[in-house]
């Protein structure tokens, strides 16, 4: 009797959330998928069935190919730089120096800012003007005599312009990665390291053979979180370069084609495409972590 009542209460507690998610998340995902298989162009809904024509058109579309290339370059560089920098900062902070709390906070602060603010500030820093209108980092390099470092930043001809957008993104998110790694490192028991030292290992060997292998789950979590941020990146790129097609990514393409051109079918197709891409990252991770939890 008491069990049933508890069960009933539990269900009642969760059911509003489940209902809301069922309608507003999964229901709308289903509706978007339906729209992506239709011919809806313009303000009046048009659910005429066209099969996978929108997706086929996307794959042939030059602009979407640029999007995918930019996303690949951005994601690869962003993940690598964030992980390396985060790990390095975490190892440095792990040395138990004075003022560790201060440094930890300072490295973590950029994460509290929105991408729009970061984008605007870095747009000024990465100003590519030359000659009499030098400004931002180019002016700094010039004044320091480092003219070799003066560059066109994100206006570099494709495909490498997008690589410069990685700079503000890493500046913002490496603190987060550092926090993850620091927690992971601190979670490794000191006894293991003491035992290694007793066996004659130096610090470098301890990091290589004991600490890093134990950080694999942390790395995986970081890759998942950073990966899905980078696959959906939008506001940072818009803040820095507007709707410049050379730096186009799928989310910007989806926004312009849906709201500027009123082409809802193709916009939905891009949205579902992005959903599938992110799922390929998240779903294996969830099932992997689910399985490991069951095992323990």
């Amino acid at each position: 009797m008491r069990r049933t009542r508890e069960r009933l209460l539990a269900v009642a507690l969760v059911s509003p959330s489940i209902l809301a998610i069922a309608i507003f998340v999964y229901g709308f995902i289903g509706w978007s998928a339906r729209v992506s298989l239709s011919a809806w162009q313009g303000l009046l809904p048009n659910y005429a069935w066209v099969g996978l024509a929108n997706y086929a058109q996307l794959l042939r579309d030059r602009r979407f190919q640029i999007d995918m290339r930019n996303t690949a370059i951005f994601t690869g560089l962003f993940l690598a730089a964030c992980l390396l920098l985060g790990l390095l900062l975490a190892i440095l902070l792990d040395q138990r120096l004075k003022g560790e709390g201060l440094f930890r906070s300072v490295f973590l602060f950029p994460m509290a800012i929105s991408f729009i603010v970061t984008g605007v500030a870095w747009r000024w820093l990465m100003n590519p003007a030359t000659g009499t209108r030098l400004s931002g980092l180019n002016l700094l390099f010039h004044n320091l005599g480092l003219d070799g470092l003066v560059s066109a930043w994100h206006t570099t001809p494709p495909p490498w312009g997008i690589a410069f957008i990685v700079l503000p993104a890493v500046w913002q998110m490496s603190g987060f990665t550092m926090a993850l790694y620091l927690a992971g490192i601190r979670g490794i028991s000191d006894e293991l390291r003491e035992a290694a030292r007793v066996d004659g290992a130096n610090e470098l060997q301890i990091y290589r053979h004991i600490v890093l292998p134990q950080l694999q789950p942390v790395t995986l979590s970081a890759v998942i979180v950073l990966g899905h941020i980078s696959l959906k990146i939008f506001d940072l790129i818009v803040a820095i370069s507007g709707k410049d097609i050379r730096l186009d990514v799928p989310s910007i393409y989806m926004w312009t084609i849906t709201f500027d051109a009123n082409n809802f079918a193709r916009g939905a197709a891009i949205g579902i495409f992005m959903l599938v891409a992110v799922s390929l990252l998240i779903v294996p991770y969830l099932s992997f972590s689910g399985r490991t939890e069951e095992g323990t």
Partner: protein
Amino acid sequence: MGKRTWLAWALLVALIASACGPAATPAPGTEGPAGTEPSAGGGEVEVFSWWTAGGEAEGLAAMVEVFNAEHPEFTLVNAAVAGGAGTNARAVLATRLSANDPPASWQGHAGQELIGTYVAAGQIQPLNDLYEAEGWLELMPETLIPLISQDGNIYSVPVNIHRANVLWYNPEVLAANSIEVPTNAEEFFAAAATLQAAGLTPLAMGEAWTAMHLFETVLLGTVGADTYNALWDGTGDWNSPEVTEAIEHFAAALDYTNSDASTLTWDQAAQLVADGDAAFTVMGDWAEGFFKGLGLTPMEGFGWAPAPGTDGVFQFLSDSFVLPVGTPNPEGSSAWLTVAGSKAGQEAFNPIKGSICARTDCDPSLFDEYLQSAMQDWTTDVVVGSLTHGVVANDNWKAEINTALGLFLADRDVAVFQSALATACAATGACQ
């Protein structure tokens, strides 16, 4: 336990009360109370726009005063939505229209941006009767009317007119380099070569849409008004050699622009001209307000001329108002449209906004030096429409052209760009 339960109930009630509160109206702005009087011979007239700041908002307020004086039986509600140069307002409008809750009238760019979006969805009505009753067909330029119509039906009342094909220049820079204001492509490229050799930026350009703005003036200047109109109404050939030449001129012009163009807004590009870092910029005549705002004197601190090759042609864009299908107040909508197209209304709005009347009988003494010359050109020139500002191409077609243009800016492949333009016309434009 009793205190906690009490607190929980209080929070729950507060939550429910806030959720059931007045639903947020979709158009934030100075909205009055809804449904105050019956609409026959009175009632609310809700006018929807994105004129929320600067000269636009003041001009609208002046036109509203004219409306209130002439039609005291109506209450005008200014439902302007800020942000995004109209993208926020259009998104809000789309939501309201699909909920069958149109305002009494709304602002839009005259031409295909309005027609291609709203006529296709059956959401705006023709205004031919109003035009005949008010005599506007005689008062507005003949070449304008087909550009704001479809199948003989006129769909909006243009309030203001801006010119897109204007070449702004710095007279001191030109004098210092002994350059005359160029009137065609050859003169322009000769001047640009001289300026580049002198270490200046010949042509200041800004972000993506200003590149499209430059392209449309170069296209007009190369192919001429007749071919230009034919390209947009489906009878022209985008694969023709004239278009190839236009694209090549455009590519050549791009070589003379500043390298950081994609990071500048249109006014930052105009600032380059004002500061003497660049000699020319091609921009609409809202740049005049910008130059005057810097305290520059016309023809001394800044000068203007028709974009090279376009003398005698007025490439226009216009803000206009429409009559919705299912308007909540038909007499009110008509009254507003009548005022929007009247001499008093347009004379109230345009001097403040910095544009010229769509009518040709407005009083020139109300306008400044540049606008007076624009008014003169408006009565005599051939009128063609702007691409960037929504006259000649609907949103879908324009977005396709925008993508093709963006790709061209990256790779400068003339043949690929031309075939993309032809494909865009066939797939989403008038060539179907």
